[in-house]
Structures are given as structure tokens and as C-alpha cells.
């Protein structure tokens, strides 16, 4: 009788201009749901979702910006020990793509150096119908090539997605999961294990992992 592999916790942060669909992507991934006129998420900006890739299970701890990025006021805590990041833009909003470049730069400065970053052009559904049609009246304002070349330059994963139709959404998280170095070798994980001794669990009793696995 072998116990299932414990899930590897991975902190994933979301970055991107307001209204590009960050929270919607998370909602689609975590709950397979979409809301048309979504209010900014209140009270739920920390979500977890497990994702199995091959024989590895990753438990994403997803940090949504919760509006702190509106005036560029994210705390260093937000980036701390993040192993993955989604930099999201809206393919119908060129300004959001410029902002995405800024966030990639910020991540290189603030986050640990082996962080896995995915560049995500969202709202693909808005251009889907006119793909291959006339360029002029398309809602698309950021071409797939522009996205790809930024990703290549900065060594990022790249996806175009739709939180609305769920196009490519799971692929983003699976793609990141497969690229994340195995837990023991990352900078963040090293820092974590070196200080794990003497940690205290303030909420009390939650960390009794051993009991879950008890066969009796």
C-alpha cells in the first residue's frame, strides 16, 4: 500500500492591468465558471486548486492582486517565494500589453530568479469569429506574433486564452506545472526548507498531516 504523492505547493501570482480577466481566469480554472459582468472579487483573493501532471500533483496557491496593483502598490510580500506567475493582458487592449511588459520586468527584479512565468493574452473569444477575416474591423489589437516574440525574448510560456469559453485555460496551468522545477531544486523551496525548523502554526492543529494518512 503506497500513499499518494503529497501535492507540491506552488505559489502562483497573477499580474496584469485592471479588467483583463485575471480573476476570471482563476474562476474558470478553480470552479470552471465564468461571470459576464464580474465585480472585482472580494474576500476570495487566495484560492487553491490541485492539478495533476503525469505522476506529480501540484497544489496551486493562487494570489490574485485584489486591486493593489491599481496604483502600482503591490507589496513585496506578494512576490515573495512565488514560483509561478501569470502575466495577463487583453488582446483587444494594446495598453494592457504594454503593461504586461512592465510586469515581466518587475517580476525579473522582484521575484526569485527561477520563477516560471506565463504570458497570457486573454479574451480570445472576442476575436475568434473574425480570425482569418479582414484585419481592419477585427477587435484584435495585439497580434499573436507580438505576444510570441515578447515571450521568446523573455523566456516565458505563451498562451492566448478565453476565460469565457475556457479556451486554453487549463493548458496554462498544466503548462506552468510541467515547467516548474522539481521542488527541492528551486531557490524558493531551498529558502523554505532551511528555515522550516521551529516554525509555529498559529491557527493550531491544522498541520497534523500525519493524522490524515493514518490507516487505522
Amino acid at each position, binding site marked *: 500500500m503506497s500513499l499518494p504523492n503529497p501535492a507540491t505547493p506552488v505559489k502562483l501570482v497573477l499580474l496584469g492591468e485592471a479588467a483583463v480577466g485575471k480573476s476570471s481566469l482563476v*474562476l474558470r480554472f*478553480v*470552479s470552471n*465558471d465564468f*461571470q459576464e459582468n464580474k465585480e*472585482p*472579487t*472580494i*474576500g*476570495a*483573493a*487566495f*484560492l*487553491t486548486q490541485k492539478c495533476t501532471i503525469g505522476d506529480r500533483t501540484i497544489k496551486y496557491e493562487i494570489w490574485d*492582486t*485584489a*486591486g*493593489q496593483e*491599481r*496604483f*502600482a*502598490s503591490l*507589496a*513585496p*510580500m*506578494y512576490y*515573495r517565494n512565488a514560483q509561478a506567475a501569470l502575466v495577463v493582458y487583453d488582446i483587444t487592449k494594446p495598453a494592457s500589453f504594454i503593461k504586461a511588459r512592465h510586469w515581466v520586468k518587475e517580476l525579473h527584479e522582484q521575484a526569485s530568479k527561477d520563477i516560471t512565468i506565463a504570458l497570457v493574452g486573454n479574451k480570445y473569444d472576442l476575436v475568434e469569429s473574425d480570425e482569418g477575416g479582414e484585419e481592419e474591423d477585427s477587435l484584435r489589437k495585439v497580434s499573436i506574433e507580438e505576444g510570441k516574440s515578447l515571450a521568446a525574448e523573455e523566456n516565458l510560456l505563451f498562451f492566448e486564452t478565453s476565460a469565457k469559453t475556457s479556451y486554453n485555460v487549463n493548458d496554462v496551468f498544466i503548462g506552468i506545472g510541467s515547467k516548474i522545477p522539481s521542488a527541492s531544486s528551486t531557490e524558493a523551496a531551498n*529558502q523554505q526548507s532551511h*528555515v522550516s525548523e*521551529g*516554525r*509555529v502554526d*498559529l*491557527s*493550531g492543529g491544522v498541520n497534523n498531516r500525519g493524522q490524515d494518512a493514518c490507516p487505522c
Partner: protein
Amino acid sequence: MDEEYDVIVLGTGLTECVLSGLLSVEGKKVLHIDRQNFYGGESASLNLSQLYSKFKPSSQKPDNLGGRDRDWCVDLIPKFLMSNGELTNILVHTNVTRYIEFKQIAGSYVYRSGRIAKVPSNEIEAIKSSLMGIFEKRRMKRFLEFIAKYNDDEASTHQGLNLDSNTMNEVYNHFGLETGTKDFIGHAMALWSNDDYLNEVARPTYERIMLYVQSVAKYGKSPYIYPLYGLGELPQGFARLSAIYGGTYMLDTPIDEVLYSEDGSKFAGVKTKEGTARAPIVIADPTYFPEKVKKTGQRVIRAMCIMDHPVANTNELDSLQLIIPQNQIGRKSDIYIAVLSDQHMVVPKGYYLAIVSTIIETDSPHVELEPAFKLLGTRLDTLMGIAELYEPVDDGTADGIYLSKSYDPTSHFESTTDDIKDIYFRVMGKPLVLKKRADGEEEEEALNGLE
């Protein structure tokens, strides 16, 4: 942005951030502004270049110090959390614990008669302690048993003493304790920073000793816990709580003008580079309304000492608190030393940080810290700062301007949480009642259940 809010908060120090978080959870629409480009105000933890530009602007940071800039998180205000204290309580109830990891402080030490020793926290440790002679140990044991067993409703546990009418000195004397023992109970356990408490009723001291003893009992090594990456994580964690509940954050935003009601009697809003924000209430640290605060008369000196070795005679501990009671060195107030290392991720591997602080009593404050420096041994560098302490002139109910107090020199956050609860009461008109916030799993369920 020209918007209406319920509350504007100025300064991202711990007091302001906790209030911001609590008020946002209560459904208030909060705008939180800081003129500086980092979180934490006076309760920030600084990286090496921030630290040197603040304390030694003329000199370059020494290049013999290792690690990356951000491997250094040096607290401006040295404090620890009591494991069983009120800030811990607030952290747990708001679930801010999920953003911050805590570790124990490995030991609690006190200076007595020229040397330092571990503070005994229970009867068994008292018996083993090198701080006392054999007879004194027994007296100390009986005293601690009295404290542990004391029950208001059972007169048999009172030993003829009344905590609300007897002074603490009378209680000590009932057990025949020596002055040196009183010193470490009053200063290293009850954490009083001077001897005024001796002639006051015993109850507050009893409560402080209980807090100490219960805090040690919680995790074992010392009564203290400390966040990885420094105290600056605390305001950030509460700011995040606020943001999750709809709070808006603007750093690097000086206040161009404070707006008042037409008759000039009440706060109405602020003007910044982003536009006008209106609210009937402002909560701010003393620096935002200098004309509405007064000096408490106390000034604090703090010295950040960078070292490459642990403190001698402390079993090479990675972290500790060391208290030098005033009596022991002929002072009126205690000297506190907080020692931290890479175990709390506040310095690179191999380094130690000792922050020494006390209330200034003379015209040459840095000399007052000498007894502490002697105990620390060689220092690679020392950065010193002096802070004047302020408190608000009015309670804020008349003009809607609610101001926090400066962070005092006590070694923990109990007085800070008193201030937080007091401001909360004045702003909300009801006492703070901590309700457990839904945890992650429940949040997910709530989200799944959204129509």
C-alpha cells in the same frame, strides 16, 4: 480618481494597516495612502540600501557585508509578538496568518549581577535556574505556584492577598523575594520597563506574568514569535487583507492638501496627484497631522548592530531577547536587546542582527547603550537613530481625525494592539469583537456557490 470613501487611512504602519484590514472586513470602503514608496512607515523592515540611506546618508553601505540587498530586512522598531498576545489573536482571527510564516524566538534572557541567564518561566525552570541561590529558588517556586493557581473565585488560592488592593511589592514581600528576583520577574516576565509598578496594585502585573507564562507554554522556547522576513511583513499582510475586501492602496503618494468641511471643523478628504478623495473620517499616523499631536516627553534611542557571531553565553542561539533591568545598571528604564539571524530570514547566512533600544535619560544617549554593546561583543557596524514619541491631542470624535500613537519602546505589541482597539472603538462606536474569518477552503466553497 475623484471618489467617495467611508474612511481614508494615511500611513501604512502596523496600526494603520490592522485598522484598514479590520474596517474593510466590516464592509467599509477604505482608501489607504502612504507618501513613501514602501509599506510599513515606522514599522517597516528595511533592506540594506534603504537602511544606510536612512541612517548613514553620507556614507556608502559597507561592501564587506554579504548577501543581496533584499536578504536584509532590518526592523525600524524592534519588537516580538507574544505567542498568546492580542496581535497573535488578531492575526489568527483575520486569517492573515496565511500570508506570513512565524518562528519562535529561541530564548529569553535577563542580565543579573554582571552576567546573563535564561529567564525561568515555570516552577521547574526556576529550580534549575542559575539566577538564584537555593533558598531564593524555593521562594520563587512558591511565588510562581501562587500565580498559576490564583483564582478570583476561590479565596483559598489568594493566600490572604488581594490583587486589587495590595501593591505588587507587597505581593513580592509576602513571598520574601529578593530585590534581584523582583527585578527579573517585573522586568523580564511582566516586561515593565521601569519600577513604577512596584507601588501600584498587583493585578496588572499578575496579568502580565500570566501572559508571559502562557505564551511560553504555547510553543516552549520563549514567549515570543517572529515573522519570517521581518516585522514589515505584518503591515503588508493586513494591507492585503484590506485589499481583498475592496480596500484601495496608493503608495508613493504625498498628501497635497487636507480638505475640511465648510465651517472648517471636520475632516472632509484629501487632495493628491491622483485627484480628490472624500471621506468623513481619517485614520493617520502622527506624521500626517503634526499640529494635532504632542510629544509624550519620551525619546527612544535604537541601535541596529550588525554582527557575524551569536551573543556570548546564550548557547549560540539564533534569536533571543535580552533585557537589562534598569536597577542592574543604575538606570531608570530598561535596555532591550532583540537578536535575530538568518533563521528568520532577516540577514544573510552567517550574520546576526542585534537591535538595542531604551528610553533616553541623559544628554549622551549613545553612551547609555554601552552596557548592551559590551554584552554583544564585536560589531561589524552600528546604525543609530533617535525617535521622539508622539500621541494625539484629541480623541478624534469632534473632527473625524483619528491619530495613532508612536510605537513605544516596549518589547512586544501589547500596547500597539491597545491603541488599535481603542481607535477601532472610537471610529466604529463598538468594541472590536474578533470573529473567525472563513478560511481558504470555505472561501472556495463560497465562490463555487456564487449564482
